């Protein structure tokens, strides 16, 4: 009888003591979790409210349709196409470098390399992915560009090719490792079936593994391109600060990110058109990268459902 009472007492004590605590913990953690939502709301609110101010001064039609970006002349001319063209030139050059090399590396790692080789090479890709972009910028202007200039003397100090090539190098690890993930998750039975029918590793990779992992591979391209669009320091250092909507890759140019850095590293006085234009450009950048990220995760999820 008394034994039971003690047991009840113990049970009750532990329950009382821990109950409030146990109930508070999830609430604290939930509040912490909500910070990420607050951050998103903060980004959206900042971009939308300040862009709104910008578009009350500059017609949105000019922003979206004009191809001249001249913030310093008079009240300024604000045609974002000049900046988008700059970004696109960089992205296309980067993609031309990064997609074949990244995919080639992914095929090697997933279809040819032994476990040992893979364990050696993956950390190298991680180190490459961890190099700060300002270092890549230095590399672009002090190493890559002099080589380009020695090949063809039409290249100026700032141009799309040196910046684009190095942005390409920067996104290779991303394409390689995400594509490799997609290819590795193709079931071994499919690969073995193909090899067993007498196909070579190359034929297996090209006709079986890549088609099966296709959406995952495309997702990695899209994500890498989104990263290239948002890349800032390489283009600020090596691509120049002359917005233009031409297709010439030997000229200096300016990207959306490059513009934001140029204006904020000088003094964009609070309340000027120039200050608010930062947020309008930021908004365009945010929307473009968000769309690409959504496409990429949609492709990845679709792929996951298949197997």
């Amino acid at each position: 009888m008394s034994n039971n009472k003690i047991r009840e007492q113990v049970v009750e004590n532990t329950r009382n003591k821990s109950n409030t605590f146990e109930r508070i913990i999830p609430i604290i953690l939930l509040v912490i979790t909500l910070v990420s939502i607050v951050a998103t709301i903060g980004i959206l609110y900042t971009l939308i409210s300040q862009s709104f101010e910008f578009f009350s001064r500059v017609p949105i039609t000019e922003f979206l349709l004009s191809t001249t970006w001249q913030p310093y002349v008079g009240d300024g001319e604000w045609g974002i196409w000049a900046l988008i063209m700059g970004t696109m030139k960089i992205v296309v050059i980067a993609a031309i470098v990064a997609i074949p090399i990244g995919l080639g590396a992914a095929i090697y790692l997933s279809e040819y390399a032994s476990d040992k080789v893979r364990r050696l090479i993956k950390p190298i890709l991680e180190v490459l992915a961890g190099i700060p972009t300002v270092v890549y910028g230095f590399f672009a202007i002090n190493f890559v560009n002099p080589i380009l200039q020695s090949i063809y003397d039409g290249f100026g100090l700032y141009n799309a090719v040196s910046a684009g090539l190095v942005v390409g190098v920067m996104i290779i690890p991303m394409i390689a490792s995400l594509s490799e993930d997609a290819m590795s998750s193709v079931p071994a039975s499919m690969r073995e079936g193909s090899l067993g029918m007498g196909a070579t590793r190359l034929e297996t990779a090209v006709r079986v593994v890549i088609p099966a992992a296709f959406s995952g591979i495309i997702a990695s391209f899209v994500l890498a391109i989104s990263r290239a669009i948002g890349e800032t320091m390489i283009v600020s250092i090596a691509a120049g600060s002359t917005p233009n909507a031409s297709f010439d890759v030997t000229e200096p140019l300016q990207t959306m990110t490059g513009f934001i850095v140029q204006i904020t590293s000088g003094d964009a006085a609070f309340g000027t058109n120039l200050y608010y234009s930062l947020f309008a450009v930021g908004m365009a950048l945010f929307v473009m990268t968000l769309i690409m990220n959504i496409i990429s995760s949609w492709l990845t999820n679709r792929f996951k459902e298949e197997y």
Partner: protein
Amino acid sequence: MTLIDKDIIANKRSGRQTRNSILKWLFFLCTMFGLMVLIMLIADTVADGWDSLDMEFLTNFNSSRAESAGFYGAIIGSLWLMVVTAPVAIVLSVGTALYLEEYAPKNKFTEFIKINISNLAGVPSVVFGLLGLAMFVRALALGNSVLAAGLTLALMILPVIVVASQEAIRTVPASVREASIGMGATKWQTVSKIILPAAIPGIITGIILALSRALGETAPLVVIGVPTTLLVTPNSFLDSFQAMPMQIYSWVKMPNEEFQYIAAAGIIIMLVVLLLMNSAAIFIRNKFSKRY
């Protein structure tokens, strides 16, 4: 009569085999391309920066003359920055990961939080800079202080640590968790005494990698307006400061060739710090990760 012409088959096969081995080498070259660039990048930087790398460079403040310009202010400033970024980012992200993995009910709202975090991971760093500029620098009037920049970077690396921590927590097998609950431990006792200790190597690896990203990040600092020619180190979190990547950027942008050499010297210091951090992360991952 032979139905199978072995010569034709051998011919066809050899063509396919050759193609296979040629492309194998091509793919191998693609894989090695990254390593080759890494070697060129390091060789170029060391060749440019080695001569400027001395004690004076480490103990001098920045200067308008290349021969006396140093990295001291930037090194100390980056340390201050990490003192703000690290605790804020760690508390927020590990808390978020614990909530999502251990407590969150499976509903639309939880799903929304997860999608939101993965989208946050894709937001360009320069946009986080704009958030910092409008929110922390202007609205909260923190100016270009250590606190404003530290909070901005903490938000930027939050998704990275959340995802790494979630993965680490997920690798703790259900059996361990059930054993703890079965022995009468409460939910929080299980989480704090069983799951966290088991997941901590993975979480720490994620934290170190994220912090090394924050340490090398330049764009948000430019947008916030971090100065490059201060002659003092900060005394409080509300003082302005310098930072390593920002300092390097300002030197790279100098037209004077001398400054390219000290920029290279700065890069060597920063890469050594990052390399140490990365090695620590890899070491912890390999040494302490528990196998169940």
